[in-house]
C-alpha cells in the first residue's frame, strides 16, 4: 500500500508530468483559458490516461514481449491509444450524452497528448507491474488535471492584469507555468527512490 501511495505522491507532486517531466504541455497551454474547460479536459484525460496505461501494459507484456516485438512498441501503443480514445468517445455518447457534451470536444485532442504515450513508455522503462502501471497512470493523470485546473484559475485572474503587450497571452502563461514549476520544486526529495 505504501508503495502505491509513494508512486501516487511521486507522480502527482514530485515528478509532476506537466511541470517536471514536460509531458502533455500542448493541451496544458491550449485549453487552460477557462476553468470549466480545464476541468473537462482534466476529467477526460484522467480517464483515458489510466485506461491506456493499463492497456499498454497488457499489450507490452502479452503481445509484444512474447513475440520479441518490443521495437514496435511505439506503433502498437499509439494505435492502441487512438482506439481507446475513439472508444471512450463512443461509450460516453451511449452511456451519458450529457457528459459527452462536456467532454466530447476534448477527447480527440488526447490522442496527440504526449502524456498518454509517455505514461505507456515510462511504464515499460520503469518496469512497473500491472498494479503499479495503473497507479502510475492514474497518478500522472491526477497530477495533470490538478495542475491544469490550478493553472486555468490563475489564467482567469490574469484576464484583468496589465501584462506588457509582447507577453500577453502565451508568454505570460509560460512564465506562470515556470513559477509553478519553481514552486513544485519544493516537493523535491519528498519521495526518495
Amino acid at each position: 500500500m505504501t508503495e502505491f501511495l509513494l508512486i501516487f505522491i511521486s507522480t502527482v507532486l514530485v515528478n509532476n508530468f506537466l511541470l517536471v517531466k514536460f509531458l502533455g504541455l500542448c493541451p496544458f497551454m491550449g485549453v487552460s483559458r477557462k476553468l470549466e474547460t480545464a476541468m473537462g479536459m482534466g476529467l477526460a484525460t484522467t480517464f483515458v490516461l489510466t485506461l491506456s496505461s493499463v492497456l499498454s501494459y497488457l499489450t507490452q507484456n502479452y503481445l509484444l514481449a512474447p513475440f520479441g516485438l518490443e521495437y514496435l512498441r511505439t506503433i502498437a501503443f499509439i494505435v492502441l491509444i487512438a482506439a481507446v480514445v475513439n472508444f471512450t468517445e463512443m461509450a460516453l455518447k451511449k452511456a451519458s450524452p450529457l457528459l459527452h457534451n462536456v467532454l466530447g470536444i476534448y477527447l480527440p485532442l488526447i490522442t496527440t497528448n504526449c502524456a498518454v504515450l509517455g505514461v505507456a513508455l515510462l511504464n515499460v522503462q520503469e518496469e512497473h507491474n500491472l498494479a503499479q502501471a495503473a497507479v502510475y497512470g492514474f497518478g500522472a493523470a491526477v497530477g495533470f488535471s490538478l495542475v491544469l485546473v490550478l493553472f486555468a484559475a490563475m489564467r482567469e485572474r490574469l484576464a484583468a492584469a496589465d501584462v506588457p503587450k509582447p507577453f500577453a497571452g502565451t508568454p505570460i502563461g509560460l512564465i506562470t507555468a515556470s513559477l509553478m514549476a519553481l514552486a513544485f520544486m519544493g516537493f523535491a526529495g519528498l519521495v526518495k527512490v
Partner: protein
Amino acid sequence: MNKQQIVLTSLVLAAFTLLGVSVVAFMHQQTEPLIQAQMDAALNRQLAAVLPAGFDNDPAASVRALPDDVLLGGKGGALVYTARKGEHVTGWALRVIAPNGYSGAIHLLVGVDAQGVVSGVRVISHKETPGLGDPIEESKSNWIHGFTGQGLGNPDTKGWHVKKDGGVFDQFTGATITPRAVVQAVHNALLYVEQHRAELLEARP
C-alpha cells in the same frame, strides 16, 4: 450501420499497418546487430574507465549478479564485471549503491584491481542537488578521480572519511553528505572485495 463500410475501413487500416510494420521490421532486422554492438561498446567504455588497464577479455560479457550485502548498499541489484588477462583476473568493476546520499541513493561503478587498489570510480546516477552535490560527477569536477590508487591500508580506516570527519577526502563547500556517502560506499566496496576475494577470483558467470 453500414457493415461494408466498416470492413472496408478496417481493411484500409490493416493495409497501412502492414506497410508500416513491414518497413519498420525490415529496418529492425538491418540495425539489430549494430544496436547490440553499440550497447556493448557503451558499457565497455564505461568499464574501461574504471578497470585497470591491460585486460584482454570482454568484461561486459563476464558479468555476475552479487547477493545482497550491506557493503554493496543493501538494496540488491549489485553486479560485478570481471576483467582478465588470459586466465588471470586483473580486476573487477562493481556496481554498488551509496544509500545515504542527500536525496537518496547514488549508483556507483567502482573499479578495483587484483591487489585491492581502486582503479577508478564513476557515478552512474544520482539525485543530489544540482550545484551542490553534483561535483561527484566526472563531468563536473575531478573529485571522483581522488579515489584512484587508494586502497584499504592507504589511507587507513580512519582516513576513509571526508576531511571534516577526520579523513583524507575533500568535501564540497556546503555539501558534506554527498561525498561522505560516496567515500563510505567506495570503502565498503573495497571491504567487500577483501572479504570475498576468493569467491570473486574463482567465480565465473
